[in-house]
C-alpha cells in the first residue's frame, strides 16, 4: 500500500508502455431474485458479489432469504440483464421500444420483468422466445404491454439463470423458532428504557 489515504492509492500509476487496463480487484456482481411464496412471482431482491454463478447462488441464499419467508431463489450474472429505457411520471418504457420485424436466427427463451413502481423491485411477468434480447424486448411489448405505465423492463436469457431445483427447495425447511434472528425480538428500546429508569 502506497498510502493510508485511499485517494492517493487510486491515482493511476506511471507507465511507459501500452498496456491493458487493469481490472478492479473485486468480484463481479450477480442479480438475485426470490419467490416469497409458492405461486407468487419472482422479484428482484438485490445483488451479491461472487467469483462465479454457483458461488453467487450460495452467497445469495443467506444474504437475502435468511429472515423472511421464501420458497425459491435464482441468480444471474448482471451482464446478462438487458434493460429498457428508464422512465418516470406518465411515460411508459414500452413506448420507447420500436417495433422491428422479427430477426432470423436461433430462438431462445427470455424472462421478462417489469418495474411498476419507482423505487420498488422488478417483478417477473412472463417468458418470451426470440433470437436476441432486442427482439425479446419487442416480443415482451406485444405480449405484456397493457398500456399501464411500466417504468423499466428487464430481459434475461433463461439459460443464463442458476435456478433452484425442485429438490433444493428443502433449503428453506428450517427450525420454525427463528425469532432470535429478528432484531425486534431483542426489544432493545424497552431494555434501554428500563435501564435508564433504574439509573434514576
Amino acid at each position, binding site marked *: 500500500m502506497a498510502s493510508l489515504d485511499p485517494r492517493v492509492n487510486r491515482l493511476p500509476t506511471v507507465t511507459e508502455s501500452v498496456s491493458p487496463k487493469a481490472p478492479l480487484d473485486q*468480484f463481479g456482481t450477480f442479480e438475485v431474485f426470490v419467490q416469497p411464496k409458492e405461486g407468487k412471482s419472482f422479484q428482484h431482491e438485490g445483488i451479491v458479489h461472487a467469483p*462465479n454463478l*454457483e458461488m453467487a447462488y*450460495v*452467497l445469495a441464499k443467506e*444474504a437475502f432469504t435468511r429472515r423472511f419467508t421464501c420458497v425459491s431463489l435464482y441468480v444471474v450474472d448482471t451482464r446478462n440483464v438487458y434493460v429498457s429505457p428508464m422512465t418516470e411520471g406518465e411515460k411508459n418504457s414500452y413506448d420507447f421500444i420500436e417495433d422491428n420485424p422479427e430477426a432470423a436466427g436461433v430462438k431462445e427463451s427470455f424472462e421478462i420483468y417489469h418495474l411498476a413502481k419507482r423505487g420498488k423491485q422488478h417483478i417477473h411477468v412472463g417468458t418470451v422466445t426470440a433470437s436476441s434480447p432486442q427482439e425479446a424486448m419487442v416480443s415482451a411489448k406485444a405480449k405484456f404491454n397493457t398500456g399501464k405505465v411500466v417504468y423499466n423492463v428487464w430481459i434475461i436469457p433463461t439459460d443464463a439463470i442458476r435456478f433452484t431445483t425442485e429438490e*433444493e427447495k428443502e433449503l428453506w425447511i*428450517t*427450525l420454525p423458532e427463528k425469532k432470535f434472528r429478528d432484531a425486534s425480538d431483542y426489544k432493545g428500546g424497552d431494555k434501554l428504557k428500563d435501564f435508564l429508569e433504574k439509573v434514576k
Partner: protein
Amino acid sequence: MNELALKELLYKMADDQLILGHRNSEWTGMGPLLEEDIAFSSMAQDKVGQSLALYTLLHQLGENEPDTVAFTRNANQFHNCVFVELPNQEYDFSLIRHFLFDTAEALRFDMLTHSSYEPLAQLATKIRGELRYHTLHANTWIKQLGSATPESIDRLQKSLEKAMPYALGIFEISPYETELISERIFEGEEKLMEKWMTKVESIISQTSLQLPDWKLVQPVMGGRFGKHSEHLQPLLDEMSEVFKIDPTAEW
C-alpha cells in the same frame, strides 16, 4: 430405552454444535467478503440454535436448563470433539473444518431421521434444510478454492492435512455404542465414519487437493470423554462472561 446411552449421544452432539457455533461466530465482522461474512455467521447461528434444540431434548429427559448446561460446565464436562474447539487460525482452516465437520454432521442427522427416539428423529427432519445449506456452502467453497490458484490449493491442502487427525476424532467410539445400535437409536460412529469418508472423497476428488492415506492418520481422541485441548476453557470463559456476571440477564 437406555437413557444413559441416549443422553451421551445428545450431549456430544449438542456440545459439538455449541462450540463450533461459537468458534465460527468469531468470524462475524471479519469474514473475507461481506456476503461470506453473512453466510458464515448465519450458519454459526444455526449451529447454536441446533444445540439449543438438543439441550432442550436433554432437559425433557431430566437434565438442567439449556442455559445452565451451556454456561456453567467446565471444559472437562464437555463432550465435544477436540476438532471443534481448535482456534480459527486463517480462513482456509475454518473452511476445511466447516467442510469436514458439517459433512459428518449432515450425515449423522440424516441417519437420525430413522432414530427409534422419536423426538430426535423429528428434530433431524426439521433441520435438514439448514444442514443441506451448510454442506452446499462448504462443498461449493472447497470445489472453488480447491481448484482455483496455486496459493488457494496449497493453503487448503495444508489445512486439510492439519485438520484430518482431529476430524477423525469426531467418530470416537461411545461407551454405549452397542446399546445405541441395538436399540436403533443411532447406527453408530463406525457406520457414520464410513459414509463420511466416501462423501469427503467424492468432493475432494473434484478438486486438485489430495487426501492423506486414511490408515496413516493418527486420530486425536479424548474429547468425548472430557479430555480437551488448552483452547476450550478460554472459549467457555468468554462465552459465559455475561451469564456469570448476571445469570438472570436477558439479552
